[in-house]
């Protein structure tokens, strides 16, 4: 059977399309999502299909429209909010964190918030300091939220569908630089469980954990390591909160070495949390300190060479893996 290949942006669109067809309460709002078909064309055709009642262009008013969406989720609807990028969601973070995440708890279990906040996160070329930040760790810090950050079209579709069906508020991180990526996505219904990591490549010498577009860096590093007869195991987190640390610990029991690749700033990053969980649950199995490869501890500059120096890349991951193997 030949597999169907589609782009990441179309995987996102299909997930929204199928879930909107399935459930009348699901609707989409955001800047340029309707008439412009999405700033990155991830909602192409949805206005034509579902009309302006369910595919809604907003003014540039992130705090306002995110709050309206949360309010509608408190009262029976299941909104999908697209942020043009997560950088702009900083204006809305009060409604995401103080309202959506805390609603169920504050109301003593009465008022839930089934809502998905989605959009691209992270660097995307030379966009400088205000358009390049990653936010997985920011939202993963918040009890009440779930955080998903898929690395390929299949996962994006299957996890977005799961997120839309989930009864809790979900933060869903995509990437401008992955919207054009193609991957196999079979026709018809696909779902993946939230909170489960994926063993993307089996190996025995060192475990590399990553997520979102940094998975490409992880895979490229594993290929490089293979040339030097180092057999890397690669884990794709898929979900950031809840974090599937048992899968990581199981892998470390086999490889005894761990490298985490994470685009975000190092301080308080997902890599930090994984390092804590692994030392706690796998201390006796570690043969070397956990290594991490993060973005530089500075705002993203504009110049191309400084960005290269800033971002994780396969060479830095190879270096970290070899350091963990004491083979430098």
């Amino acid at each position, binding site marked *: 059977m030949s597999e169907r290949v589609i782009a990441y942006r179309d995987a996102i669109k299909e997930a929204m399309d199928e879930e909107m067809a399935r459930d009348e309460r699901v609707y989409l709002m955001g*800047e*340029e999502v309707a*008439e*412009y078909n999405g*700033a990155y064309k991830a909602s192409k055709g949805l206005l034509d299909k579902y009309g302006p009642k369910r595919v809604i*262009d907003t*003014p*540039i*008013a*992130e*705090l*306002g429209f995110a709050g309206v969406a949360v309010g509608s989720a408190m009262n029976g609807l299941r909104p999908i909010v697209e942020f043009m990028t997560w*950088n*702009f969601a*900083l*204006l809305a973070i009060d409604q995401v964190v103080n309202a959506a995440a805390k609603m169920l708890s504050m109301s003593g279990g009465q008022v839930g918030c089934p809502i998905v906040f989605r959009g691209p996160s992270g660097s995307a*070329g*030379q*966009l*400088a*300091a*205000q*358009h390049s930040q990653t936010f997985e760790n920011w939202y993963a810090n918040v009890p009440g939220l779930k955080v998903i950050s898929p690395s390929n079209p299949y996962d994006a579709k299957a996890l977005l569908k799961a997120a839309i069906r989930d009864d809790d508020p979900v933060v869903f991180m995509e990437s401008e630089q992955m919207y054009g990526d193609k991957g196999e996505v079979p026709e018809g219904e696909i779902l993946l469980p939230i909170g489960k990591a994926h063993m993307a490549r089996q190996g025995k010498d060192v475990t590399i954990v990553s997520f979102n577009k940094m998975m490409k860096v992880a895979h490229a590093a594993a290929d490089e390591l293979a040339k030097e007869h180092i057999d890397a195991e690669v884990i794709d987190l898929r979900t950031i909160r809840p974090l599937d640390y048992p899968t990581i610990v199981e892998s470390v029991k086999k490889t005894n070495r761990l490298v985490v690749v994470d685009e975000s*700033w*190092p*301080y308080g990053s997902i890599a930090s949390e994984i390092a804590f969980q692994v030392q706690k649950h796998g201390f006796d199995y570690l043969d070397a300190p956990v*290594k*991490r*490869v*993060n973005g*530089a*501890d*500075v*705002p993203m*500059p*504009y*110049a*191309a*060479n*400084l960005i290269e*120096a*800033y971002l994780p890349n396969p060479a830095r991951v190879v270096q970290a893996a070899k350091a963990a193997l004491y083979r430098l």
Partner: protein
Amino acid sequence: MAKKAFSKADYLYWFELMLLMRRFEERAGQLYGTKIRGFCHLYIGQEAVVAGMMSAMGPNDKVITAYRDHGHALGMGISPGAVMAELYGKITGCTKGKGGSMHLFDKEKRFLGGHGIVGAQIPLGAGIAFAEKYQGTDNVCLCFMGDGAVRQGALHETFNIAMTWKLPVVFIIENNMYAMGTSVARTSNVTDLHRLGQAYDMPNQAVDGMKVESVHQAIADACNRARTEQIPTLLEIKTYRYKGHSMSDPAKYRTREEVEEYRRIDPIEQVRATILDKGYANQATLDDIETKVLAQVDESVQFAEDSPYPPDSELYTDVYMQADYPYLQD
């Protein structure tokens, strides 16, 4: 204030400045994709706004705007070379290759950026004015924003504060009719954007942004009000961008006829016509100005080409004032 009679010098200044902005950006547009990357938002069509501001504002007044900032930077006197080098990401750029197109700055030239988060510069502009008042100067802050930015809540919070605290600020909406693909009419019932000042009793006015004389007059009046009475003003300058939102926007949300309609009232051509009409200069003189401007643009490109990229060590500078800040290295 009484209407100012504009002189030959005013017109020739406007003509040269607007032409510099136009030719500089045409070149930047050509270089985009090979030498210049990232987001690049062109100002072409809106030049009369900056030209009118420059002749109307005081010598110590300050300016802040959004990411469509090449015109403001050139107007405020940042050299074309320093702007072009910044677009290239070179160390000789006006922010050392750190900020790029969206974040041009020059503190000495009283240009405080170049901001990428839509609407975020509105409170910052009021804050710059706050500091002027606090320090007892009579300087004014001119705070620019797009028509899309006026839908941010920060505008309302800031307008209320600026009026209540009597801050010497002039809020200037450059209404080019679109925020990316969204027309003004699709974002609100209130499409006369200057009326947004009314809820706070802020003086407000609509201005023809294709006519540099109108822009000058409105900004001069507003600066005077801010300077002498500490009363903010909201100006809605009606203008138009000929190009797409950024380099990747095919601008299918508007008609070719609409663009043509504005090109017919091009602000530079209007000034050229007045100069010739009034005999302030002949065609040969205007051609000389054009030649001079093109040479400046050529030089700016050459300067950018010849300049080095920032050394990698620049990654760990300019983040803190503290020189020996202990960055996390792994």
